[in-house]
């Protein structure tokens, strides 16, 4: 089951402008809170009407502003799992499920279908419980089961793991992944958490301030994010504005130094990004490619690493981009203190050229 | 004084303004005001008399309060300002006259100025139907207990005409029967009885002949059978607490005079012989 979306909707200052397509895969819609990801899902589900555009699922046009087609949510057969699961609090698990089974089928083999669902989602024994009596993970399974009972052509999950405590998340994520793998259609997975996206999804579409970027594979996204926004979302912490000097050399404005890049630098690249754990303290092993003399600003010991924030000697320590953050497994030199000098080296293959805007 | 908070200042000024409305009298004290409480059925006639009186006593302003005699008596009892009281029934006047039967004046009120009580007019009780609309041919007080009448409007027992209605039906031997038939629509004063009949909300009603005469919405179909009720005389008196006893006495003289009698007769009242 494929899905094609190209919609625009204006909310006063905020403009939603998203376009993407997917076919029988798990596509992540990754973006910060308020970026428009949930709104996009609502448009696909038919709860919100875009100002213009087209939405086609499995060959059926759900919405077309030009042809004046706008199917009601009931007619669209798309599944949408809300963040709060939206289980009907006045009905038991059994009633929640049967309501959907009955409205989709003729009611003949309701009991069979119900039992199958309960089994597949590990809910046997919970039929007569009310949602308020279930744990977060159980509620999610009920919501998923209910969604699957409606036989959706595509399923959309709106931040499915956000409502859970972190110690629950791992187990629930595992179950969720199993269920999603069994589902043969397209899944749209909305999240602001890149780690989830990396583990669960195959493709990523970044949504930034209402606008969607080009769909890329998860690998591409993390190794070579195309834009500044993507890089931010992918967790990259170090950026500098640049001036392109040649296809493989740039002048980093915020770091006041030239840098050699392994990756090709496109003409419209405005920034570079380097991941925090890719920057190394200068030592004999790494040579002096892309060496920068810095001064230490701050040293923090995190759970499994040490975070050292430095600033290049010539740069302005008050500017945010000037600061370079390094994540090291440990400190070789225990006596390092804020204010000390420290030379760092950035391996050329770790520099990611970034465009300013979406493609 | 520096006004910091504009809102608070406005609120305070409004408050002062409201208070001041109660502090100052609304009219200049150049003229005398006479407050006359009179039964509702006296409305038309008393208004005409006041207009006439203005010619002889231009600086006397007469302020009326028309309502059922029972309500007026209660208001007087509870301290309302009043110079002259005209009731449509002896009972209400008796209740505030120390010279009256203590069984009626149970609270032993002494509000009547001695020697000023007199009977100002007398009235008749009639049965009325909506104007031009008497399909069942109601023509007698006794028709009330037949199927000719579905609902009849009477004043309640606090209203003099209501008391007379009850007396009439008791004397006809029909009161209990009438009550048991759930046909009585009780009104709080005569005007209400009239408006219920005029609107056609009831089939008939019992009012004074004076009210029937002044209402454009009813037709009279019967007079109360002879002897079925005590004569209806309206007592009037100056009250002890009158603010202007002299002006009141002057007005009372006018009420007893020939000009007033002419007006009363026009309305349908009879004036007792001196």
């Amino acid at each position, binding site marked *: 089951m494929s899905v094609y979306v190209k919609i625009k909707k204006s909310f006063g200052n905020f403009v939603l402008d998203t376009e993407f397509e997917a076919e029988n895969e798990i596509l992540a819609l990754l973006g910060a809170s308020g970026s428009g990801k949930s709104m996009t899902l609502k448009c696909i589900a038919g709860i919100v009407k875009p100002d213009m555009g087209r939405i086609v699922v499995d060959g059926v046009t759900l919405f077309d502003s030009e042809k004046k087609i706008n199917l009601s949510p009931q007619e669209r057969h798309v599944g949408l799992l809300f963040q709060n699961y*939206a289980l009907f609090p006045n009905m038991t698990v059994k009633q929640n499920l049967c309501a959907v089974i009955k409205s989709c089928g003729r009611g003949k083999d309701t009991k069979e279908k119900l039992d199958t669902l309960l089994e597949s989602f590990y809910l046997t024994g919970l039929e007569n419980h009310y949602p308020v009596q279930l744990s977060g993970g159980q509620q999610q399974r009920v919501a998923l089961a209910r969604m699957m009972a409606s036989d959706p052509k595509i399923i959309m999950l709106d931040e499915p793991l956000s409502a859970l405590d972190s110690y629950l998340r791992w187990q629930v994520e595992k179950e969720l992944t199993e269920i999603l793998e069994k589902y043969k259609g397209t899944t749209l997975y909305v999240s602001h958490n890149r780690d989830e996206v990396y583990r669960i999804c195959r493709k990523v579409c970044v949504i930034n301030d209402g606008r969607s970027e080009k769909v890329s594979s998860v690998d591409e996204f993390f190794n070579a994010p195309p834009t500044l926004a993507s890089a931010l979302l992918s967790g990259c912490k170090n950026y500098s504005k640049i001036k392109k000097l040649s296809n493989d050399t740039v002048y980093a404005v915020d770091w006041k130094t030239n840098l050699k890049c392994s990756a090709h630098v496109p003409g419209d690249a405005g920034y570079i990004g380097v991941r925090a754990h890719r920057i190394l303290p200068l030592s004999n092993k790494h040579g002096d490619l892309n060496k920068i003399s810095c001064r230490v600003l701050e040293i923090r010991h995190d759970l499994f690493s040490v975070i050292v924030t430095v600033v290049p000697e010539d740069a302005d320590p008050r500017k945010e981009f000037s600061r370079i953050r390094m994540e090291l497994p440990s400190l070789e030199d225990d006596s390092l203190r804020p204010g000390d000098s420290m030379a760092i080296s950035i391996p050329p293959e770790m520099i990611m050229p970034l465009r300013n805007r979406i493609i | 004084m520096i006004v910091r908070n504009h809102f608070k200042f406005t609120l305070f000024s409004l408050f002062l303004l409201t208070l001041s409305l109660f502090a100052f009298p609304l009219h200049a004290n150049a003229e005398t005001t006479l407050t006359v409480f009179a039964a509702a059925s006296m409305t038309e006639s008393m208004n005409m008399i006041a207009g006439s009186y203005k010619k002889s006593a231009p600086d006397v302003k007469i302020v009326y309060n028309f309502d059922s005699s029972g309500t007026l008596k209660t208001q007087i009892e509870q301290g309302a300002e009043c110079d002259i009281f005209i009731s449509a029934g002896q009972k209400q006047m008796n209740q505030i006259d120390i010279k009256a039967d203590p069984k009626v004046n149970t609270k032993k009120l002494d509000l009547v100025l001695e020697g000023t009580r007199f009977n100002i007019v007398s009235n008749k009780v009639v049965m009325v139907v909506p104007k031009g609309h008497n399909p069942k041919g109601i023509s007698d007080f006794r028709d009330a207990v037949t199927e000719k009448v579905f609902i009849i409007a009477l004043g309640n027992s606090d209203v003099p005409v209501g008391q007379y209605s009850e007396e009439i039906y008791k004397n006809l031997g029909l009161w209990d029967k009438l009550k048991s038939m759930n*046909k009585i629509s009780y009104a709080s004063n005569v005007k209400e009885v009239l408006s219920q009949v005029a609107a056609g909300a*009831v089939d008939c009603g019992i009012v004074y002949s004076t009210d029937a005469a002044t209402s454009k919405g009813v037709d009279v179909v019967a007079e109360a059978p002879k002897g079925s009720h005590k004569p209806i005389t309206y007592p009037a008196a100056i009250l002890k607490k009158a603010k202007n006893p002299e002006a009141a006495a002057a007005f009372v003289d006018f009420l007893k005079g020939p000009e007033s009698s002419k007006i009363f007769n026009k309305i349908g009242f009879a004036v007792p012989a001196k």
Partner: protein
Amino acid sequence: MDWFPLYNSLRVALISTFFTFFLGIFAAHYIAKTPRFLKGLIDGVLTLPLVLPPTVIGFFLLKMIGPLGPLGSRVLEVFGFKLTMTWYSAIFATTIISFPLMYRTARGAFESFDSTLLYSGQTLGLSDTFLFWRVIMPNCKQGILAGAVLSFARALGEFGATTMVAGYIPGRTAIISTTVYQLWREGNDALAYKWVFINLVISFIVLTAVNMLENRYKQPVGAAKNHFDHED
């Protein structure tokens, strides 16, 4: 003692609440669908009886359903019965006057209702009718019930408009409030006190019933409860 006023008051209040219940719910539900500029106007009109003096409402009603009024005379002609001075005349008055209470309370309940429940139901293919009666209404039970009780209480206590359109006919249109008024006018305090006491008892019973119902229906709505998932 003549118990008719009690019987009549309850009868009128119950029937009136029945009408108000459905009218109020439907008005509250559909007002959400009206375009914005019209919404304020309609809401104002529907709330008007709450702020108008009951005698003003009684006046308008009389002009409409009185025997000489456009509606009243038509009904008299066609069906042969009067709309005023009957026991059911009171129902017109009490329904109009208590309607805003039901309408506003229901509206408040619907507006604080979690709309994701509705949306999710729609995406699951459940019809709007099913969702209204099986999801929205049960989850707004408290508010709806409160509205119904308020309407009933207001209908029970109506005086101004009722006395104008139904009058006071013992055995036919008398209700507790008009009876107490007449008894006061006649000076029959003893009987008046009896009725006041009866009215207090009824009100007390109604309010206690409401409190009990409210406590029964106090369940937390919706959100995930996080505790150890023993089933896994």
